[in-house]
């Protein structure tokens, strides 16, 4: 008992607690990596920069000014720079969200509440468009509806129909809305399906017994109950669409159709950094507004519609009767068109020697396996031989791996602090700061890190152009998700398990390694896989930070698309799509086998 530790004051005890030390360190780091960059971004927009001398004679580098804000909001340029893109953003956002919600909601009902056949395999097919990179869908759309008026080769539509498609089908509001909807309907589907799964069918049975028709039940009972989830899904989906960069860029830029997100990129490309940052801030504000609205709506109504009572919960499926097979075929066809056809198109096009000629003699493996040939594609060798691409592939895997592992580990530690220090205001603050990256549209987040790390600052070197910066931003961007995963995992670990080790004399480090990590591991590893796949298909987040030496598959693919080397870009996007699909399959399979194991244990 000589080992008793005597300490000077309660304050010292608090300071010496390893969990508190970690809490303070993480708070510091997150403050620096999340809040400070936003501040930098704002400061940058209200300060004269060196480059501003060529824009205005009044420019005094380092002084404060409203010049950039006025330029963006109230100048001859504003119409083109802000208002038209804003309108475009809102219109494409609303249209695509409405479509995504109707389609996603309808499918969710079919899968969750009806007796439609083939649900088991339809579900993964229906989530495919969300799994593959968003601009794969844009590329596929281009493959079909490319209009030669903009230059380049004709698309499939023109080859088959003999006349070019109208321009509004090829570029602008219509294709962007449709492809955004195609990419995001699975997101809406998952949100609505979650809500539908919580409905107790006894509510519907009650209505059935009082003689209501099926439509009436749907309209009067089912829909009102899921309405808050619907509203939240609307706002969240909308929030996601406005941050999309690659997809509207590919289908809009050729005809000078811009959204706020593409305008950020275009301004940066022109060297108008501050303008781009003003737009990025506006984008963040829109996103904040959307999340705030969603919280407000759901927060107010959620209680009222709390349907999980725990007892007597039953979920009965609605019989479709004669509609069973027609509905199945429609859903299956739809799943094929949005989930599989785009990938087939991309694959087919990547085999065409000369883009746009859809006959068999035109097929070649050159863009996959060919050596460099100055006649084709500016001498770029096929993707499987291309040193550039192999380097990018290696970078991609490295980036995804390190980001996923680091994000999951930090997420777990933050989750641990948040769960175990419940009620501590600093822990709560940590939780909230870790969630903030969720609110930043990814292109705006990239812009923040661009301002933050372009130059050395105190002890921190200029990270721009380094691989470290890519990992840093990917980790921070994944934190909201990994903390959530971690919280779920840690909450399930009873406090007594840890106290038992504490009584046995195990230090905090030992408890964390021997008890928390092993018990949280299955959940955290799943989260790690999700992050791995997520980072891999990320483009908007890192597009502003990429330099030739740090290129990854997605950015190389995007550059090829920009340069019009369609086959190469398709081949690359296809590779990423295949990797992400494989990742999702592993996750799906792992989740399933875990369920099976659980069931075995219980029986």
């Amino acid at each position, binding site marked *: *008992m000589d*080992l*008793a*530790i*005597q*300490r*000077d*004051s*309660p304050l010292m*005890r608090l300071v010496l607690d390893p969990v508190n030390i970690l809490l303070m360190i993480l708070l510091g780091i997150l403050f620096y990596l999340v809040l400070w960059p936003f501040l930098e971004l704002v400061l940058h927009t209200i300060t004269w920069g060196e480059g501003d001398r060529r824009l205005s004679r009044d420019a005094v580098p380092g002084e404060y000014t409203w010049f950039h804000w006025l330029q963006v909001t109230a100048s001859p340029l504003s119409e083109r720079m802000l208002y038209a893109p804003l309108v475009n953003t809102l219109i494409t956002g609303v249209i695509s969200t409405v479509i995504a919600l109707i389609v996603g909601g309808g499918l969710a009902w079919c899968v969750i509440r009806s007796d439609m056949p083939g649900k088991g395999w339809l579900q993964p097919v229906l989530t495919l468009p969300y799994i593959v990179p968003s601009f794969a869908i844009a590329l596929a759309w281009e493959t079909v509806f490319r209009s030669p008026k903009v230059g380049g080769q004709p698309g499939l539509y023109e080859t088959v129909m003999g006349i070019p498609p109208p321009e509004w089908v090829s570029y602008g509001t219509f294709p962007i809305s449709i492809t955004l909807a195609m990419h995001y309907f699975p997101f809406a589907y998952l949100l609505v399906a979650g809500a539908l799964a919580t409905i107790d069918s006894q509510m519907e049975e009650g209505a059935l017994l009082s003689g209501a028709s099926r439509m009436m039940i749907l309209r009067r009972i089912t829909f009102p109950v899921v309405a808050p989830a619907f509203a939240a899904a609307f706002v969240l989906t909308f929030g996601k669409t406005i941050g999309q960069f690659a997809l509207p860029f590919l289908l809009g830029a050729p005809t000078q159709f811009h959204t706020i997100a593409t305008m950020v990129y275009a301004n940066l490309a022109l060297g108008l950094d501050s303008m781009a940052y003003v737009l990025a801030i506006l984008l963040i504000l829109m996103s904040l507004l959307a999340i705030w609205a969603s919280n407000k709506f759901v927060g107010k109504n959620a209680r009222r519609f709390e349907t999980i009572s725990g007892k007597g919960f039953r979920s009965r499926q609605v019989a479709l009767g004669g509609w069973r097979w027609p509905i199945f075929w429609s859903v299956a066809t739809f799943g094929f068109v949005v989930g599989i056809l785009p990938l087939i198109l991309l694959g087919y096009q990547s085999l065409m020697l000369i883009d746009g000629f859809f006959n068999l003699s035109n097929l070649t493996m050159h863009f996959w396996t060919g050596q460099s040939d100055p006649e084709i594609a500016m001498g770029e060798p096929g993707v499987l031989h291309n040193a550039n691409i192999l380097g990018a592939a290696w970078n991609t895997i490295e980036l995804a791996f390190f980001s996923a592992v680091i994000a999951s580990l930090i997420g777990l530690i933050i989750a641990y602090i948040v769960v175990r220090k419940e009620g501590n205001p600093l822990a709560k603050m940590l939780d909230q700061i870790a969630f903030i990256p969720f609110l930043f549209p990814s292109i705006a987040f990239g812009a923040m890190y661009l301002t933050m790390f372009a130059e050395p600052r105190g002890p921190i070197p200029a990270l721009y152009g380094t691989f470290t910066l890519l990992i840093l931003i990917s980790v921070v961007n994944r934190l909201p998700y990994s903390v959530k995963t971690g919280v779920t995992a840690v909450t399930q670990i*009873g406090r*007594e*398990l840890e*106290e*038992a*080790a*504490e*009584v*046995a*004399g*195990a*230090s905090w480090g*030992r408890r964390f390694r*021997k*008890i928390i990590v*092993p*018990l949280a591991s299955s959940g955290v590893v799943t989260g790690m896989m999700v992050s791995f796949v997520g980072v891999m298909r990320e483009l908007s987040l890192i597009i502003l930070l990429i330099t030739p030496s740090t290129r990854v598959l997605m950015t190389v693919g995007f550059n090829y698309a920009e340069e019009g080397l369609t086959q190469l870009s398709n081949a690359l996007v296809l590779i990423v799509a295949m990797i992400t699909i494989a990742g999702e399959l592993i996750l799906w399979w792992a989740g399933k086998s875990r369920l099976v194991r659980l069931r075995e*244990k219980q029986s």
Partner: protein
Amino acid sequence: MVGGEKQTRSITRKAVLKVKLKMASIEIENLTKRYGATTALDNVSLKIESGEFLVLLGPSGCGKTTLLRCLAGLETPDEGEIYMDGELVFSSKLNRIVPPGKRNLGMVFQSYALWPHMTVRNNVKFGLDVLNLSESDSKDRLDQVLKDLGMGDLQNRYPSELSGGQQQRVALARLLATKPPVFLMDEPLSNLDARLRMDMRVELKKFQASTGSTTVYVTHDQTEAMTMSTRVVVMRDGLIQQVSPPSQLYKRPENTFVADFIGMPRINLIKANRSNGKNRLYSNGDIDIDIGWDEAPSSIVVGARPEDLKISKEKLKGSQAYEVSSVLPNGPETIIQLTRGGTILLARIGHEIDLHEGEKVTVQFDQKALNVYDAKSGALLGPPIDTNGTN
């Protein structure tokens, strides 16, 4: 399932446990713990003798678990001192807090807190690993403890593959492995079904006796407290109500709360006032009770256990007539509800006595067994004297 239970039913079936523990007493002085505005422990002082089986008993929220967790070091009290084996392990004045792992104690949790990702053997081994024992010492001790608790065959199983009773035993093995002189147990039997709980009570009692440990045991189950303890501490709202051996706790509850809390069915607490001019006779308007004692205040509460009511079908001297309003047979005994005016009393009688609802009976109080409390403070006023004795 049942067969497996039987094979390993008793740990102590063959011999006493090999492990003998050091002795240690515990002293708690003026301990106070607050959570915001609520006081979980209010200036609690208690001395626990070495080798004692002390049970902390009380309704939920009374502070018993908080007290146990303060002893373990899992909670930090706001004020007071704790000594273990004469060593100061907590002092608010000296700012001295010995962490749980250094207090030389073992704990069994309500959920057992077995680590689900470790085998039985590794669960028990964890504490030895922390102590940095040599590999051979550790192995010998492990084998011994697992054998003592009849877990030798199950040592490579995972906790989820064990029955409730077996899990309980792993928790005990883990407790014993590091040879702590003090055992802390937080409702360890509350997760077991009723029959197994009964068996485990016996087992735990033997386990404690053969190890000679100082045990502090928290429960809200009075039967558990009565059957296992050497002394019971009844708590309420962070205050100790009574500290007594179990038999005395039942016979001489020191206040109306303890009287009411202990005993199933409940004690009859009858609020009564002194009848005009008659010193020993008290009445609540419906019934008259002769407490056999004439120096009590004018307003009292009489505590009469159901078995202290003598029921007779004949009219006896000094008895009053009651109506049987309910008959509740329960195996060896029968509980009778009696009514007289607005007063309802419970009586316990043998199963052989045949009574029916609506029947008229007379009741006599066993004056020797009655406890008399002050109506205002609820405190025990002292023993009523024998009616035949002199005062």
